[in-house]
Structures are given as structure tokens and as C-alpha cells.
């Protein structure tokens, strides 16, 4: 019987809203007891004085690149980054090579995830075969493996009929469809947000309308067939408004926003440093503000990383040739704390909820993202709220180093991460 006593930490429970210093006893991978002055009783005692204890983070949108893109990341390096970032559950995206459009690919991802053992994986299945947008993938076959979320990721389902059928068919499994929101006719050759900055930089613009047109269509389609839609990486004020209206009208919609769309604006692109190249693109201060408010008021349910590693030789190209994507797993919470919580845009418990219970409400992630109460799986993160550190891409656990936060000073860092009571991160070191 393994026993652990987390002593004297500030327990922040996003499930119940409980926020108090307490001791937490973990027995055999589950929370056994929460209270004051608990005795060791044979347990290993971990001093958590001055630290925060909360539910392990859940990421709805991660690119682990395996199979097929192991030069950028694989399940081992990505899992290590996750553990270091306080995550206990990830949803690896379907845009691998081959695409995760059938059970064998999903089984490979699940098996590799278990072998590495640092984080639980809940793969996202493809909406269409090969993510070509033509024929539906076998949702039922994938659902037998627990997959209840489908996306063609970077490739929007452009055909409205295919999208409608996918939404409708998914209801058989109570699954959710998530569609990369981009009307690609409006974004041909696009390189950055269209606006005052692109105008001066001479880079072809990605207008926010291209996102909003697609979100509006998908909301209407989902409503029509009573299906569940999840809007990925909301980046624009207009999208926020559409989701707000749809929720008020009872559309079964959830939404996520990334740490970078909550903190970085398109002004950064004036360096032409491709670390800032991402899809959807970094937008304006007004868009950031709208996303922050929507996150705080619950219009946006979850913070998702869209962690997207790319090898340095790909990012070290001319802006127009460099691929889109950013590392996020290891910096997500610290960015949220430093850029949103500390300046007062969102309170701490709400921010934690958007990284735990929020995503857990979008799809089934087993025992993750739940409250910290007796009987719950001990998927936890212990954070040092005072830690101050400078982001350095080379020091992160990901194989790639394309962080947009290079050189930034952030506050807070996970010290321990526990997956069913086992340390995946201990004293800041990943425990493989």
C-alpha cells in the first residue's frame, strides 16, 4: 500500500471552490483524506508549505507529433513537457502521419502513452478519413477505445454537408466535433492577422472574419441537428460574441482559448521572428481583451495549449516559409498566472477551473479534472507560486524549442505532478 501525505499546502479545488491550507492524504493513487493536522501514519510526508495544490491540468488540444513527426516531438518528450507543466491528461491531436482516423493509430498512441506513463492520453480522432474532408472516419471503431472527440485539426471541414453529417453521426456516441475554424478561401496565402500591423509589415492578412464565418456556420449546423460542437483556439472578439449568443440560445457548444491568444498580440510579428507564427494568428489587444473576459465569464470553457512543436530548421526560415505553431505545455499555467491572474483579469480559482474542470466538461477524460475529494484519483499538481523563472526554449522538455515566450520572466512553476498518486514530476524534475 503506497501512502503519501502532502503536508500544509494551500489546497485550491476548482471542483468545489474550496481554498484553504490543508493536509492531503493519498493512499493507493486516490485521495483518502483532506484535513488539518493529519498524522503521517506511515505515509511519506511531502512538505508543501507555501505551495499550492490543485487538480492536475487537462489539455484538450496537444500535438505530440507521434507517429510521423518525431523530429519535432514524440510521446515521450511531449509527456515529459506535460508533466513539467503540471498536466496529467492530454488530448493528442489527430493530425499525425498517418492520421488518427482508425483504431490502429489510436491504439499506437494509447500504448505509447501507457509505456511512457507520465500522462494519460485521450486521443482525438479524425473527422474524415485522412482528414481529407471527404468521407467520415469510423467514429464507432474509435469510440470503442474511449475516443469521444473528433477533429481534422488544421484542416477545416469545408464541406457543409460533411460537417453536418459528422455532427449528426457523432450524437450516436455523445461525441463532440471540433472544427478548425477557418474559411480557407478567405485565408489563401495568409501569414498573420489582417489589420494595422499586417498593413505595415506587408504580410498577407488572415482576417478574423475567416474564423467567424466558419464558427457561425458550425454553430448553426450543430444547433440544427442537436449535436455538440467544440470551438478550438478562439482568437477573435467576433468569435467570442458568436459563442456567447449561441450559448444563450441553448446550442450545445463549448470553446477553448490558448495561452498565446490570451497574452500575445500581432505587434510581435514586426520582428518577423517565426516563433510568433501560429494559426489562428496572434490578433489585436482588443481580441485578447475579449478572450480574457470570455474566459472569466465562462463563455470560453477551457484553456487549451495547441502545443505545436516544430524543429528549429523549420522555424528558422523566412516568415512565409515557416510553419505555424508554438510550444505551450510547460509555460501554460505560468503564463496564465503571470499575464491574467496577477494583473486581475481572472481570479485564481476560475483560472484553475479553466485548466481542469472546464476541459473535463468538454469530453470524457476519466478521473482527470475533478474535485479534490476522498475517493477521487490523485491526479494533482503542486505549484510554487513564488517561483520566478525566465523561459528558455532550449531548457524545455520538448524536443523542439519554438516557444513564443523566449526570454520572458514568468511567475510560478509546478514542483510536483502526481498521476494517480505517483510522481511524474518531483522537485521540478520529470520522473520517467
Amino acid at each position, binding site marked *: 500500500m503506497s501512502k503519501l501525505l502532502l503536508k500544509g499546502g494551500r489546497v485550491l479545488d476548482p471542483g468545489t471552490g474550496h481554498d484553504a491550507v490543508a493536509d492531503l492524504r493519498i493512499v493507493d493513487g486516490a485521495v483518502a483524506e483532506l484535513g488539518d493536522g493529519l498524522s503521517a501514519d506511515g505515509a511519506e510526508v511531502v512538505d508543501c508549505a507555501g505551495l499550492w495544490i490543485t487538480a492536475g491540468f487537462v489539455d484538450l488540444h496537444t500535438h505530440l507529433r507521434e507517429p510521423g513527426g518525431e523530429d519535432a516531438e514524440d510521446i515521450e518528450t511531449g509527456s515529459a513537457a506535460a508533466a513539467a507543466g503540471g498536466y496529467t491528461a492530454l488530448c493528442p491531436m489527430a493530425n499525425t502521419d498517418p492520421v488518427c482516423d482508425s483504431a490502429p493509430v489510436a491504439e499506437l498512441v494509447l500504448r505509447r502513452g501507457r509505456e511512457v506513463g507520465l500522462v494519460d492520453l485521450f486521443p482525438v480522432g479524425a473527422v474524415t478519413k485522412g482528414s481529407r474532408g471527404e468521407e467520415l472516419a469510423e467514429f464507432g471503431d474509435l469510440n470503442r477505445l474511449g475516443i469521444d472527440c473528433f477533429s481534422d485539426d488544421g484542416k477545416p471541414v469545408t464541406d457543409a454537408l460533411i460537417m453536418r453529417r459528422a455532427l449528426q453521426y457523432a450524437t450516436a456516441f455523445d461525441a463532440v466535433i471540433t472544427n478548425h475554424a477557418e474559411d480557407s478561401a478567405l485565408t489563401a496565402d495568409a501569414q498573420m492577422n489582417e489589420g*494595422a500591423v499586417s*498593413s505595415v509589415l506587408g504580410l498577407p492578412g488572415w482576417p478574423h472574419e475567416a474564423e467567424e464565418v466558419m464558427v457561425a456556420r458550425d454553430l448553426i449546423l450543430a444547433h440544427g441537428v442537436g449535436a455538440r460542437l467544440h470551438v478550438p483556439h478562439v482568437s477573435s472578439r467576433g468569435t467570442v460574441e458568436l459563442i456567447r449568443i449561441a450559448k444563450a440560445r441553448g446550442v450545445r457548444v463549448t470553446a477553448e482559448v490558448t495561452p498565446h491568444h490570451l497574452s500575445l498580440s500581432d505587434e510581435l510579428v514586426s520582428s*518577423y521572428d517565426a516563433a510568433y507564427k501560429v494559426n489562428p494568428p496572434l490578433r489585436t489587444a482588443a481580441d485578447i481583451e475579449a478572450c480574457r473576459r470570455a474566459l472569466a465569464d465562462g463563455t470560453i470553457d477551457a484553456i487549451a495549449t495547441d502545443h505545436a512543436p516544430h524543429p528549429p*530548421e523549420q522555424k528558422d526560415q523566412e516568415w*512565409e*516559409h515557416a510553419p505555424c505553431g508554438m510550444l505551450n505545455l510547460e509555460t501554460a499555467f505560468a503564463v496564465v498566472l503571470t499575464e491574467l491572474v496577477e494583473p486581475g483579469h481572472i481570479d485564481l480559482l476560475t483560472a484553475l477551473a479553466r485548466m481542469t474542470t472546464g476541459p473535463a466538461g468538454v469530453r470524457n477524460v476519466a478521473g482527470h479534472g475533478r474535485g479534490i475529494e476522498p475517493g477521487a484519483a490523485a491526479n494533482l499538481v503542486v505549484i510554487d507560486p513564488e517561483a520566478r523563472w525566465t523561459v528558455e526554449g532550449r531548457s524545455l522538455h520538448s524536443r523542439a524549442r519554438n516557444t513564443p515566450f523566449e526570454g520572458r520572466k514568468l511567475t510560478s512553476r509546478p514542483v510536483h505532478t502526481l498521476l494517480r498518486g505517483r510522481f511524474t514530476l518531483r522537485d521540478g524534475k520529470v520522473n520517467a
Partner: protein
Amino acid sequence: MSTTAPARLSHLISIEDLSAEQVSLILDTAESLREIAERPIKKVPTLRGRTVCNLFMEDSTRTRISFEVAAKRLSADVINFSAKGTSVSKGESFKDTALTLQAMGVDAIVVRSHSAGAPLQLTRWVDAAVLNAGDGWHQHPTQALLDLFTMRRRLGRLEGLRVAVVGDVLHSRVARSLTQALALVGAEVTICSPPTLAPPNVEVWPGRWTSNMDDALEDVDVLYLLRVQRERMHRAFFPTTREYARLWGVDQARLDRLKDGAIVMHPGPMNRGVEIAADVADAPNAVITDQVTNGIAVRMAALYLLLGGGQPDEDPGGDA
């Protein structure tokens, strides 16, 4: 800094990086170098022993030749390096090309790229002075400077000049550089284009914008026409070149409406019959060939100032 010499140039990437004093210095330097072209032996030893690399990632024979002539008239050694299509999948990357040139010890790199921002990136990888010869839709600073030089020579001043810049502004690096340069020297700018070819948030640009050509031409000293690519009509920017020519092109009738002494300019290559009628291109107040001639003097001045001409021991480079 106000009364002393303008800050030394380490690179020439964007007009935005320049002060009005630096622009004046470049134009004045060009003025003194221009007479070299009129000598029987068109060469001075100023940059002897210096190496200038023309790194052209995109074809542009006119601009490359202009830079080559400029460098050679200053006695620099010139290397022409053309490398089209530079994504990693196609071979050597832009960064490796830059590092190669760095290792060869070139003193200046004149870079033309299809990719906006490539010259700025280059400054992070090399010690050589980087001179932007056009990057995507972003900037073409020597074009703007040679245009100012031409206006100043023809009209005797820059401050207070009324200049209309007309055409495909959205896709034009020339328009970005030129409007900024004109604002810097106190000229009054009107930008005119079809609404579909106006840059986004045009209010952040210097000057005012209108889609009405006749309104734009009112009382101008300089009518500056931008090239319009015929392919644009296939992306629904405008219906036909015929309609474009009627609404935004300059024909004899529009030329006649310009006030006395007004000049017509074009960065070339022209689309005769689209943005400019053939007769207009050949009119006495069209100064398009002057622009080409002046381009050499202005590029000589830029190279001279970047490389600290005549003082080969001085470090020409610098960090971005």
C-alpha cells in the same frame, strides 16, 4: 543629436528606421556621386577592397543590375548570388546561405526576397551591412529614396509637395516605402486605389486615401503610378484591365488635367495600357528613365554610407 551628424547607418532595411536627417544625408551624398556617371571613366576607388554580395532570392534583373553598377562604380568587388526557392525542402536554407556569406567575409549584402522580413532576419545572422533591395510587399527603401531624389532634382524641394500614389497599393513594397519617406520629408500624400487594393487599416498609412482617381489628381505636383499585375483580376480585385485603366489608369486626358510642372513617375516595369497609357509614359513630364538613372546614384550613396566609404578600417557592420 539634433545638430550633429545623423546617426550612422548599420543596415538599410526599412524607411521606418530612418530619420529625416539620414534621408537628407543619403540624398545629398547621391547628389555628389551622381556626377560620376557623367565622367568618361565612371569609377572612383572609394570602396576598393570591399565586397558586396547581391543576394537575389527572387528574380529582378533591373534592380540587381542597378546595384551592381552602383557597387562597381565605387570599385567594390561584386558577387551575384541568385537562389530562387529557398524553403528547406528545396535545398539550402536562407539561414545557411546567410552563414555561408558571413563565413566568406562579405562586407555588404544586398538582398531581394519574395519573403517580407527576410532582410531583417538576415541582420540577425550576419555581421555584414544588409541593404534591402525589396522584400515581399514590405519595403523597397532604395526605390523610395531614388524617387525622392528624382522629385527633389525635378521640382527643387520635397517639403510641401503634393504627391498622389495610385494603383495596387496593397501588394506594393514601393508604396509602403515611398509614402513613409514622403511623410518623413514633409510632403503631402494621397493614396488612391480600388477599395480591394487598399491596404487593410489604411488609416495607419501616412496621408489620405481615396478610391476616386480624379479627386486624387487634384492639384498634385507628382503623380506616382504603381504597377498593376494583370493576374490580380483573377482574384476578383477588379473585373478587367479595361475597367481598371478607365477608373485608375492615366491617359492623355488625365495627363492634361495635371497642373503645369507636375511630373509622372513609375517604379517600372510598366504595364502600358493598364495603369499608364503609352503616350503618357513617353510624355516630356514623365520622368521614368530619370528614376532609373538616379537609382544608381542613390544606391551608390547607400553603399557608401553603409560601408563607411574611404575608411576601410572602420567596422561597417553592427547588430540589429
